[in-house]
């Protein structure tokens, strides 16, 4: 399992509001998803188009979008290289969903953990020589 898949798995596990999530790159290529490949690609294409069109409004650097409809809500959050889109049921707690999505993006962006080099075998400590009982000398 890749880091991206693991991040999405954890996301849907911890957030009861998120029904599905798709992680994709700036070109719209799906990196990981909790739904089937063809559906994930359709979500990525629509979410990318939504971001591009929304980016022309306001003039600033768009970071996240929430679209609320009668069918449910779509959340889109982006960072420098990747975008995550998630669907929820109607009227979710937006702040919580955004927080979970940002955490998932960070987790997915983490480089894979390198296996730790094995520590050199420590030399076994030598058993201490028993101190000789002090002799008080001849009585």
């Amino acid at each position: 399992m890749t880091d991206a898949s693991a991040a999405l798995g954890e996301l849907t596990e911890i957030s009861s509001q998120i029904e599905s999530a798709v992680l994709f790159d700036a070109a719209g290529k799906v990196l990981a998803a909790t739904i089937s490949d063809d559906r994930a690609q359709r979500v990525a294409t629509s979410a990318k188009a939504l971001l591009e069109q929304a980016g022309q409004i306001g003039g600033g650097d768009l970071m996240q979008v929430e679209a609320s409809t009668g069918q449910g809500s779509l959340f889109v959050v982006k960072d420098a290289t990747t975008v995550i889109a998630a669907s929820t049921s109607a009227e979710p707690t937006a702040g919580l969903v955004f927080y979970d999505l940002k955490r998932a993006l960070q987790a997915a962006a983490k480089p894979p953990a390198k296996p730790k080099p094995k520590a050199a075998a420590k030399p076994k400590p030598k058993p201490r020589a028993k101190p000789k009982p002090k002799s008080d000398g001849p009585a």
Partner: protein
Amino acid sequence: MGRRKLLALGFAVGSLLGIGLYARRGQEGRDRVDLYFADGSLVSLHSDSPEAAPLLLHARDALRAATS
């Protein structure tokens, strides 16, 4: 008697249709898009805004794909 029943039935069906249409209209009226920018500003576009229409179209496409 039959005419009265027919009138009552027509009234009931009409009322139900009216309630359904009202509820649907109310739901569509709640559709909106919130845009959050890096500088902390927020732009909220309601469904009656011309800028929101294409964004909601993409959002509905994505939601349809996600839930189908």
